[in-house]
């Protein structure tokens, strides 16, 4: 197992590097450079000014040199400075990462709880009227665009209650109550809207487990329905849900963009999007490294969870 863990950790390095190379190439292939963003259609745009800016930003060098220079700095922990904000890239990322993860974790906990309840209920009452109705309603929720629902909710709250979550972000360390108000609605909304999808995984998984021989055996032994469900069924049905939730948590590293835009949260999503629009290369590359790392680590942790849940799975 230790060898397996070491091997997986070593494999992460080329994975992350390859993804950053891919991002670097894509950003440089996209039309509209940092120079275009900087000058726009300003009349003062001249070849001299463009050359001076390119030299200042280091983009006058060939692409391989730019990438290798960046790579060399990353190896020493220097992620560089944002061209737009003139601030260290790492500092900007860390400012936002905690908010994005917080949103994702709270949303995931809400989602796991209700998905498990709902999915299990639907599996235990398969093909009942309730099952059909709830699955139909879930389809509506799955189809509803998150952005539209969030905007509609904001409009409703402001109209009906003259209240919306505070628009000025306050970190948890500064004011717990205000912070709670800020993240409660976006994370709850996100969590609730994920329930229809996750509950289907749980339902299908529970249905598969319920038809297993060992479940029949447990019932035949006289174990209570509750014990069969919690000890024998749910534990084994957790695998697919963990995979989906784990990867969705990893996705939060890229930010919960739609929530951030509607609820004016300064998260990773908006930072990443703005950096791409501004062609802020150090920022784009820095965030890409982070997201790649989070994904590979999340994948790895999900695999370890599998092994913990199911003793039959042993990695070598």
């Amino acid at each position, binding site marked *: 197992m230790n060898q397996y863990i070491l091997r997986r950790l070593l494999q992460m390095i080329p994975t992350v590097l390859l993804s950053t190379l891919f991002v670097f190439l894509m950003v440089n292939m*996209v*039309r*509209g*450079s940092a120079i*275009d*963003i*900087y*000058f*726009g*259609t*300003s*009349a*003062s*745009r*001249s070849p*001299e*000014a*463009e050359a*001076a*800016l390119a030299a200042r930003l280091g983009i006058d060098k060939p692409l391989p040199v730019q990438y290798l220079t960046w790579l060399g700095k990353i190896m020493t922990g220097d992620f560089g400075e944002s061209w*737009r*904000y*003139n*601030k260290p890239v790492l500092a*900007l990322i860390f*400012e936002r990462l905690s908010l994005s993860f917080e949103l994702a974790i709270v949303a995931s906990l809400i989602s796991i709880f209700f998905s498990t309840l709902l999915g299990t209920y639907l599996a235990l009452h398969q093909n009942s009227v309730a099952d059909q109705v709830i699955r139909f309603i879930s389809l509506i929720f799955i189809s509803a665009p998150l952005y539209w629902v969030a*905007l509609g909710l*904001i*409009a409703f*709250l*402001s*109209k009906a*209650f*003259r*209240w*919306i979550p*505070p*628009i*000025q*972000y306050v970190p948890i360390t500064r004011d717990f*109550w*205000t912070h*709670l*108000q800020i993240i409660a609605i976006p994370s709850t909304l996100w969590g609730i809207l994920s329930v229809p999808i996750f509950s289907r995984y749980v339902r299908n998984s529970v249905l598969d487990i319920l038809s297993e021989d060992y479940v029949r055996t447990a019932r035949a032994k006289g174990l209570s329905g*509750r014990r069969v469900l919690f000890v024998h069924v749910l534990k084994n049905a957790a695998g697919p849900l963990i995979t989906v939730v784990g990867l969705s948590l990893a996705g939060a590293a890229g930010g919960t963009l739609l929530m951030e*835009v*509607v*609820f*004016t949260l*300064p998260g990773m999503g*908006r*930072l990443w999007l*703005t950096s791409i*629009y*501004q*062609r802020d290369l150090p920022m784009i590359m820095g965030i890409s490294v982070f997201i790649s790392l989070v994904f590979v680590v999340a994948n790895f942790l999900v695999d370890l969870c599998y092994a913990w849940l199911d003793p039959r799975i042993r990695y070598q």
Partner: protein
Amino acid sequence: MKNRLSRRDFFKLSGSAAFAAAAAGYGRQLTLAAERLAALQGGNAVVTAVGTEPVGMDVCNPWALGTAFWGLLGLAYDSWWSYDRDLNVVPDLAESWERPDDSTVVFNIRQGVKYHNSNRELTADDVVWSYERFINEDLGCWSLTEYQQHVETIEASGTHQFTVRLKTPNLLLTRIPLPMAVNPDAYANPTDLLMQQEAGTGPWVLNEWETESYVSFVRNENYWGAVPLIEEFRFQVIPEEQATVAAMRAGQLNFLTIAKIDNFRQLQNESGITAVAGPSLEFRRVNVNHFSENLQNPDVLQALRFGINRQQFVDTLTQGLGQVSGPLSPAVTSFALPQDELNELQAYDPDRARSLLSNAGYNDSDNRLRLDCLSIAGFKDFNDVAQILQANLADIGVDIEIRIQEVGVWVDSRVTLHDYDLSINDHSSGGFDPDFTYYRSDQAEQEWTGGGDPELDSLIDASNVEEDVDARREILQNIQRKLIENVRELYLYSPPVMEAYSNHLVGYEPWPGSTNLRVFDKEQVRIE
């Protein structure tokens, strides 16, 4: 006998506790909401929203693809002169000025003006330092070409006096590019750019800047002019305008400039909020790429000119609050073409348009003209404008393919590749004394679009030096006629400037033509 808590009882208790906590939390939320509302109303801050975060606070900063930049800049930095409500030029940082001859203007700087967070007093040497920075080609400051065209030198002629020697004799005061007063001590290097800091003398001092969250200014207690009665000016970064409307209703904002008519209408009916719309200096236009092979035939250009129903834009996109516009917004009443002449020059005449296209060899059945039109994703109402244009021109036999581009790609298309026929754009005269220098042949914009007309250049140069208002009006109107008749661009409509503000902002009156944040200090707006 079981004396442990059963699982059912545990869940019952947990559920009740959770419900109680939620109810308490909700009650607390309402209390806090009420407190916050009272704080905003009883407090002393103007809280408004911007859709995109200003990039920086450097006066030279060309990272200016966003409107928030200019508004914020004007809070921290003074200008040398300004307009009053009657649109007369009045002294500001410059106490007075003289013109000893045609090519010289001497400015006298107010004495005792101190920079923010510093004891350093503004002197003429600082002005020269700032000027040398503005003309540094490597920096590419936004007004570089104006200096290159009009200014010979700017020199200090006294501790509180600087002299501008002009290349263009008799250049109107409002055309003279003047470097903003900045504190040189704030720069390690003149080629540095101040991003989240400023070095001005204005009535508002930059206080806090939380990236992608908010920017806050506090009043300058040592301001040389009228110290604002309001203590703080805060700009919340809110990308989605619908969210700003909700925030306004919830009392979390007390001032707002609105771009979309639907959002404006929502706030018109809200109690405690005043929503006003007025003519604006801004107008929508369509760039014409004169390099395009599809647009070489003059009949095609004229067909486009007469094939657009401009009133439809006004009715659909502004619900009648806007106005049909030419190359100058109708809000500039002194110099814009009279509306009836404008309507004649830009008449909607689809039959005439079809006839012109037929002359050019096209028809509206099997040989329709195909053009493409660029728009910028998510920028104002550009996509809506493109769609109406597409529908109008389809009627006369022109099929428009709308290409919605991200802003960086749009710049690349317009400046470098020229791979388009038409592009939605906007413009603003910037003030009530319009400057058409932008249309001169030697300006970059004409280089990118294949424009330029020596006759037009002469008119533009004449307009920059003609002091007599009636004569200048004649010249400016001739410029507008030429731009329309030669289809330099296609001019569409002027949207209204729409603002909403809390009734607790006492003394606020919208500024004509655009939102002017300096109203809050100059006119001593207060919160009650």
